[in-house]
């Protein structure tokens, strides 16, 4: 538990922090510790230093007064000495009282501060010496006298008095307070300044790291063309150099890879273009085949219409003439046979003529040219519906069919024809819905064909595709359309065809 808390605190306090934060902490913590130590020392040492200050001050004062008292005590000029001492007491607020005694202990000068000071700062004493000059006074009779540079006398001293200095503790305490306040003020200035400087230094140290990290992010983002200005030495300079080397290597590898990809892409595009070209050629081929088939159908239809139907009409006309001639002749057995034969020929030729017309209509739906796709489909459905056992057909057509013509109209007609034929032949349907829709809204320009029946349907996985479905797919493919077959056993069949309605396709 404690370990986990410690780890969490560690992670919170250090692990997840930025480098600039860590650097700042590294710089600031010793500073704060130093400031704390200084503060503790300051507070603890204050009384001792106050006593020390008092002692030093008192000793210095006593020594100074003693040194200055020599003249006064020797010459008897005590007023001058008192003036000096009084000025000292006035100027120095530490002094409570100064007394000067002669060698016999008689008080000669005593000056006490006129301010309300306390005498609790301690007493300090010093002896007053008279320093005899090392000058021959020519009064000795134990050695030769010289007025020149010869000098054999040593300086001697004699105690001629004492000085007693009594200090007041108030000034020492006030000084300590001022000292503490000044130190605290100094700390208050120095610590924030140092923190600020540490932060600046941290940022300065963090700057190359930040540059390195940004560069690595760019590299990670795929920008390998990173080149850093290396103006730092040491490890940071080495790191930035390494990043430059790495980015250069990666950039070169990227260029090589891109070259390979581009080459491969070019190959694929070439292959794709070839495939597209083949596909277009295939479509053109299918269209051409379909067109040839239609042309051939048209030619056959024309041949049937012009030759066979004319011959059949001629044969029927001749048979009618035979019949008319037999009718005008006396009834005989022979005439009866002739009449029967003529009537049989008329019947056969009529049936052949009807069949030929159907064949011609199927081969060459000229109704498409006359009625357009919508009318041709309607006429086709009426034809199928007229057959015995045929389902009921419903046609729904919408859109502008004026833009559906030519090969596209023929293909659409044939596709509906094939679907309806399959329904009639296999679906055993009762209702068939045929929808022809021209969609022309913006980019959605297409001819939609749908044939939906309620027949038996089939399993597309089990039923092999017939020639008719394959032909439908080829027709749809030739016009870059789509064909969708939805069916299932007992679920009817839904054929959905979408043919793009583009100028090129229309042509």
């Amino acid at each position, binding site marked *: 538990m404690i370990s986990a808390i410690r780890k969490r605190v560690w992670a919170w306090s250090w692990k997840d922090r930025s480098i600039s934060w860590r650097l700042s902490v590294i710089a600031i913590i010793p500073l704060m510790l130093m400031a704390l130590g200084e503060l503790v020392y300051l507070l603890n040492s204050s009384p001792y230093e106050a006593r020390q200050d008092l002692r030093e001050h008192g000793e210095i004062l006593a020594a100074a007064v003693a040194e200055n008292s020599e003249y006064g005590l020797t010459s008897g000029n005590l007023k001058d000495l008192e003036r000096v001492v009084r000025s000292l007491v006035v100027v120095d607020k530490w002094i409570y009282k100064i007394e000067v005694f002669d060698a016999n202990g008689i008080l000669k000068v005593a000056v006490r501060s006129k301010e309300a000071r306390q005498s609790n700062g301690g007493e300090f004493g010093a002896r007053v010496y008279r320093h005899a000059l090392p000058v021959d006074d020519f009064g000795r*009779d134990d*050695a030769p006298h010289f*007025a020149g540079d010869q000098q054999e006398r040593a300086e001697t001293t004699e105690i001629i008095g004492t000085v007693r200095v009594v200090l007041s503790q108030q000034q020492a305490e006030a000084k300590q307070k001022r000292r503490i306040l000044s130190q605290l003020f100094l700390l208050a200035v120095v610590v924030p300044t140092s923190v600020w400087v540490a932060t600046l230094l941290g940022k300065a140290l963090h700057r190359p790291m930040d540059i390195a990290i940004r560069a690595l992010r760019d590299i990670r983002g795929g920008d390998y063309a990173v080149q850093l200005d290396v103006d730092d030495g040491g490890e940071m300079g080495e790191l930035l150099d390494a990043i430059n080397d790495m980015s250069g290597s990666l950039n070169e590898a990227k260029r090589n890879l891109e070259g390979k990809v581009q080459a491969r892409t070019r190959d694929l595009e070439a292959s794709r273009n070839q495939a597209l070209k083949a596909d277009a050629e295939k479509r053109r081929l299918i269209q051409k085949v379909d067109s040839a088939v239609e042309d051939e159908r048209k030619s056959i239809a024309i041949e049937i219409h012009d030759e066979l139907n004319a011959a059949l009409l001629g044969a029927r006309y001749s048979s009618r003439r035979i019949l008319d001639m037999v009718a005008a002749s006396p009834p005989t057995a022979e005439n009866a046979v002739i009449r029967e034969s003529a009537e049989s020929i008329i019947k056969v030729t009529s049936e052949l003529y009807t069949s030929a017309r159907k064949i011609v209509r199927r081969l060459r739906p000229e109704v498409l040219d006359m009625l357009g796709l919508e009318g041709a489909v309607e006429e086709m459905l009426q034809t199928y519906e007229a057959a015995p056992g045929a389902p009921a057909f419903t046609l729904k057509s919408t859109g502008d069919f004026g833009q559906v013509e030519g090969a596209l109209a023929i293909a659409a007609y044939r596709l509906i024809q094939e679907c309806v034929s399959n329904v009639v032949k296999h679906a055993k349907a009762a209702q068939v819905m045929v929808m022809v829709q021209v969609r022309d809204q913006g980019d959605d320009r297409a001819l939609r064909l749908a044939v939906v029946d309620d027949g038996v349907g089939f399993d597309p996985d089990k039923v092999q595709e017939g020639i008719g479905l394959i032909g439908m797919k080829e027709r749809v493919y030739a016009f870059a359309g789509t064909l969708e077959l939805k069916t299932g056993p007992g679920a009817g069949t839904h054929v959905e065809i979408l043919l793009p309605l583009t100028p090129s396709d229309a042509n």
Partner: protein
Amino acid sequence: MSPSTIVHLESRRRWVARAGVLLVAIGAAAAHPAPLSAATRERRDLVIAVADSGDSTRKVVSDLRRRFPRAVVSDAKTAAVRKAMVIAVGPVALRAVMADVGEGPVVSVFTSSQVYHSIIDTAGERRPAATAIYAEPSPAAQLRLVSMLFKRPVRTAVVLGGRTAFLEPSLQRAAAATKMPLVVESYGAGDSINGILSRTSDAPAILAIPDSLVYNSENLRTVLLTTYRNGQAVVGFSAALVRAGALATTYSEVEEINAQLEELVNEYDGNGRLPEPQFPKYFRTVINEDVARSLNLVVDDIARNFAYRPGQR
């Protein structure tokens, strides 16, 4: 110090002094002799009496041996050459020579006037004829130096004690010669030097005549401080006192005293008359430039170079 005490001290120092004198004699004999006058070279009955072997005494003896090669350097107590002229170096030697009654004259050198007169006064009537070249500077020369320092006659105060009272007439004469207003203050028993100095505080200059009753090493600092505070210039009486804070003084080195002594001996040999005690004739000047600046005195080279050297006219 009583005579009995002196005798006692001398008996203790005798062996030390004899060894010192011997060393001085050996050193002097080794020195290269300088050219001498005919009278000096021929004089054989000259005794240099010394009582100590200090560096200064050895220097004095060395110079005297150079000047009087035939002279005998002797311990003062054993220098009894009945008809010889005796040169007593210092007060101890002088007292010893004066106590040993001889027929030759005695010349005292390197003894101050006050001590010389004290010894002479206590020597008794049977003492030998004596004269002296005092150790301290000539008051007349000092007064001339005062006039040179101030470049005008200034009121000059002199404090004379009982031992130096005899100098007053000569001081007055010297003052008159230099046209210096002289204030002579007498120092008697119970007087305070500070009191006298306060009375003479209007005198710009104080001529300090060495008198141990007036000026001594114990009160010289106070005297210097008092005169400094009064703005007074102290002239006197040794180079050591100038270094301690006096303004200036004339003084004589050993060679200059000895040169004067040599002239005195020659004069005596020439006319047989012993001259009166006299102050040093040859001297030089030392000035404390710091004190001069403090007193706002502009010292010129005339004062700095104020001197009288042997052979100078």
